């Protein structure tokens, strides 16, 4: 990249343009680098951008810079910066994507230094300022014609560029140049993290990679304990959990688990996650596990020892969480419709329920009504014989008909009207049967639609 930019000024001899000039050595670190403010690590290397999620093992805030670059915020990480940089670079090399990294305060300046060909380094603030001043303008993140224009004006270094009055520069080259100059000196541009950083994270490194399910479960228990302690301190409960397990080879696996009701009970959360452990494939082992609560909700401390509504509510949501992992569950909710199957809606099992008004309706409404053959004395009389499969049932009593007309205000083809009868068979069984189609229609059919008590 440096070669392409260096070839641009027409005044340069051809051979000199083909060979990128070696970057000037970085200024010396000076005494005791004291870094304040936000710190970033910019990584560059072929294919590094694809490792963004995996790089979350180093810091919760990671963003992509195109396909070959990453930006990792390292503010507040406990490790000393040189060790951190060495560890990150070693991990990337082991994962098969060697990268160069520059750790400092202004991501734009770090990226420009890497582009200029500098090797990996940790920059103290003074060192960074001096290095930026010495940067060639060709290394800046600017459109090619702007760089060519700067070179025509003889502005080959950032220091020379910064010495110019800003107004004419902006008029001539547009606002992008000023924005880049500000970014070089630490103005932070917008930066989209690959995952929004959760407020509550617990993570642990494992010097000996975890291979077995019991070991993973034990590690998970420790993570949960520390996560729940943090949640309790903040007065919130987790509505979702995300476990990310990082393997040494640059891949990762994730388990997501939602909760019906905010919780910070380690035993309950462990119960939910324990069943999912078997879905993880450690292969060569997990080197780091990170448990995050990406969604939280305020949760008042529960008063224990008073059995009552609140306790039952909590136990119910814990039960529904467990059942919901394996099975489909819902609450029946009423819907304003007189069409029998439409009068019932499926609601969230965790949500509130609603009462139903009693009606002369069956206890079970068959999802697939059973076709019947009926014999009636008159076309519009209740049936006197019903044949279901090979069995013939004599009807001794019948109530009806209850005519239910289709809801014409709905879109779509209109189904035929139905005449419902409540019939009692000779055996005593009570059925809710219906004739589809008005009596006398060409195509009327009988169905068993439900069982009455």
């Amino acid at each position, binding site marked *: 990249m440096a070669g392409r930019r260096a070839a641009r000024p027409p005044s340069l001899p051809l051979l000199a343009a083909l060979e990128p000039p070696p970057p000037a050595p970085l200024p010396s670190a000076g005494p005791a680098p004291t870094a304040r403010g936000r710190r970033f690590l910019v990584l560059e290397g072929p294919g590094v951008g694809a490792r963004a999620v995996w790089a979350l093992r180093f810091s919760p805030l990671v963003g992509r810079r195109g396909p070959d670059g990453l930006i990792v915020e390292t503010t507040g990480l406990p490790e000393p910066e040189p060790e951190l940089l060495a560890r990150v670079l070693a991990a990337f090399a082991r994962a098969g994507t060697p990268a160069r990294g520059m750790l400092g305060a202004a991501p734009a300046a770090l990226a420009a230094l890497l582009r200029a060909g500098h090797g990996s380094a940790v920059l103290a603030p003074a060192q960074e300022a001096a290095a930026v001043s010495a940067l060639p303008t060709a290394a800046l993140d600017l459109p090619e014609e702007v760089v060519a224009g700067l070179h025509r004006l003889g502005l080959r270094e950032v220091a020379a560029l910064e010495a110019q009055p800003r107004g004419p520069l902006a008029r001539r080259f547009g606002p992008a140049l000023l924005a880049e100059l500000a970014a070089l000196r630490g103005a932070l541009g917008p930066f989209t993290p690959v995952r929004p950083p959760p407020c509550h994270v617990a993570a642990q490194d494992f010097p000996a990679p975890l291979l077995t399910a019991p070991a993973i479960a034990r590690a998970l228990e420790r993570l949960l304990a520390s996560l729940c302690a943090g949640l309790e301190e903040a007065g919130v409960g987790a509505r979702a959990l995300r476990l990310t397990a990082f393997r040494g080879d640059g891949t990762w696996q994730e388990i997501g688990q939602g909760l019906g009701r905010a919780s910070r009970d380690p035993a309950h959360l462990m119960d939910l996650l324990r069943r999912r452990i078997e879905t993880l494939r450690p292969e060569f082992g997990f080197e780091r596990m990170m448990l995050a609560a990406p969604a939280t909700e305020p949760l008042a401390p529960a008063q224990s020892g008073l059995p009552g509504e609140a306790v039952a509510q909590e*136990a119910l949501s814990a039960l529904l969480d467990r059942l919901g992992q394996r099975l489909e569950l819902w609450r*029946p909710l009423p819907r304003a419709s007189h069409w029998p199957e439409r009068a019932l809606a499926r609601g969230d099992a965790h949500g509130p329920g609603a009462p139903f008004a009693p009606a002369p309706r069956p206890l*079970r409404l068959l999802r697939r009504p059973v076709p019947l053959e009926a014999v009636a004395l008159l076309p519009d009389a209740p049936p006197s014989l019903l044949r279901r499969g090979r069995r013939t049932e004599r009807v001794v009593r*019948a109530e009806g008909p209850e005519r239910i007309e289709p809801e014409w205000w709905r879109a779509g083809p209109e189904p035929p009207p139905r005449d419902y009868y409540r019939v*009692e068979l000779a055996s*005593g069984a009570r059925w809710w049967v219906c004739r589809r189609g008005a009596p006398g229609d060409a195509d009327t059919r009988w169905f068993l639609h439900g069982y009455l*008590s």
Partner: protein
Amino acid sequence: MTEPVPSPPPAMDRAGLLAGLRARIARLDRSGPDMQGRAALPLSPELDAHLPWGGLPLAGLHEILGEDPGSSLGFAALLMARAQAALPGRSLLWIAPEPDAYPPGLAGLGLDAARLILVRAPRAADALWAAEEGLRSPAIAAVLLLGPAPDLTAARRLQLAAETGGGIGLLLRDGAEEAGPGAALTRWRIAPRPAQEATAHHLGDPAWEIRLLRARGGRPGAWLAEWDAAQGRLVTPAPLAAAGRRRA
């Protein structure tokens, strides 16, 4: 030469000895009728008087057989509604391969669908697991399990789970199946009957023939019963003569 003759316990002590033995048996058989503190659901005065618990015991498993799905489900729904009334604030679980409960009809038996949760469990193993989890939870008043009968071990597990949670478990099975040994506290067979005031064009209230096939620590029995929807009570006017003829 004096031989120690085991002296028989004084006549005064005999009552105390019997009480002690009874207490020991009750401790061994935790589901016995003597267990203290076992609350019971009221059904009807006649049924309550017949059952050794003075009603249908809570914290237990009950089997309901019936060849007609409507009447047996009606009885089960009535028990669920009673459990709901006895344990306010708790919910009901309806576990079936295809849960097609229709709350407008269930409301006629007093069941409040606002606290009804339907669970679709196509596989029997999942259904049993869900029933056990539900019964163990203190948030559940009743669990209704439709489908094939669990084996003895599974039924025993459900009974133990119900004792932990305090709700009732109802196994609703097709009566045509052979009713083998069971771990349930009671086993019922429900058959539909015509109502008292039924006419050719009026079905009347739900009416059933209720047979108690087995009750742990109790006798079998049979009754004709009718659900009085207006009053919300179960009326059992006459015990049937054939009580106990039919073996479970």
